[in-house]
């Protein structure tokens, strides 16, 4: 399970390495569509890259539609991770 700081660091790494977005632009309030210029197809690439980075399956998650700011991505990954590690009732 990744800590909050690791989630931020790994998500930012994806954006820097795969999307070539400068590190200094990666502030939590930055919007992936308005500030970085991603479109809906780029978002699919982002989701695939995040899946790989965090070893999670989020492609079909409805919450993806609400992603906008970097903070919303960090929170989403944290929530997914939390759910994966919550033991299900027998």
């Amino acid at each position, binding site marked *: 399970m990744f800590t909050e700081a690791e989630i931020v660091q790994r998500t930012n790494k994806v954006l820097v390495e*795969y*999307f*070539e977005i400068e590190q200094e632009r990666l502030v939590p309030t930055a919007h992936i569509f308005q500030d970085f*210029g*991603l*479109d809906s*197809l*780029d978002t699919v*690439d982002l989701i695939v890259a995040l899946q790989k980075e965090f070893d999670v399956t989020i492609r079909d998650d409805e919450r993806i539609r609400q992603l906008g700011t970097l903070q919303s991505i960090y929170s989403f990954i944290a929530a997914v991770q939390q759910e994966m590690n919550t033991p299900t009732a027998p």
Partner: protein
Amino acid sequence: MMHLLFNAWLLLITSLAFLFLILPGSCLLAACSPLIPKARYADLTRRAVKVFGRLILALPYPFIRIKYRDRFPAYAKGACVFVCNHRSSSDAFLMARLSFDGIQVFKRWVLRIPLLGFMAQRAGYLCVTDLSPEDLMEQALSVLRKGQAIVFFPEGTRSGDRQMNVFYSAAFRLAMQAQTPIVPLCIAGTERIPRRGSLWMEPGVILLHKLKEWTPEQYNGWSAFALKNRIRDAMSAELAVMDKELESC
């Protein structure tokens, strides 16, 4: 007063060209459609569109001059994806000035233009608003596999000024999937010819530059997002030079 006279004159000669050349030519082509195989008919229609486009571009001369520069003429023609910046509704007509024959990707509003919409459909151009992203990709791939070029305006809409909008990535994904070159086309000067939301034409110079192609060998390994931004940056640098040149015209 000069502008009023210019626009009146332009309206007159364009109407005459439309009535006596473009309309009869289109009617003749439409009448022949049952006799010609569909693929051949689309090809003929594209040729007609090119001839009509060149005529439309020639009419305002010398008040509106178009300067085309092919910065890398050595590029062999064939399957490739052309990406153009989009400042004005007249940008699509400029494709007639080029030596290649490309399938344009257009938005639904073009279909509302009398005759032009009809011709666009018959020429096999792809309406982005009528197709799902998957269907657009499939049909565009089919165009490229036939060895034809395809023309995108990746900003998605006209900027209306010298700013360039953010690029959508579909054109770049298409090229990556088909492993074809991407050729940037830079258009400057059309932002006033006509201005967005107006039919009012202003005399001036239009510059059209074809830049060096980006080959799969160059871009393989990059994300579509990175590719679109690198090409956008290259076009932006060229457009800055072109805009400066326009100021001195």
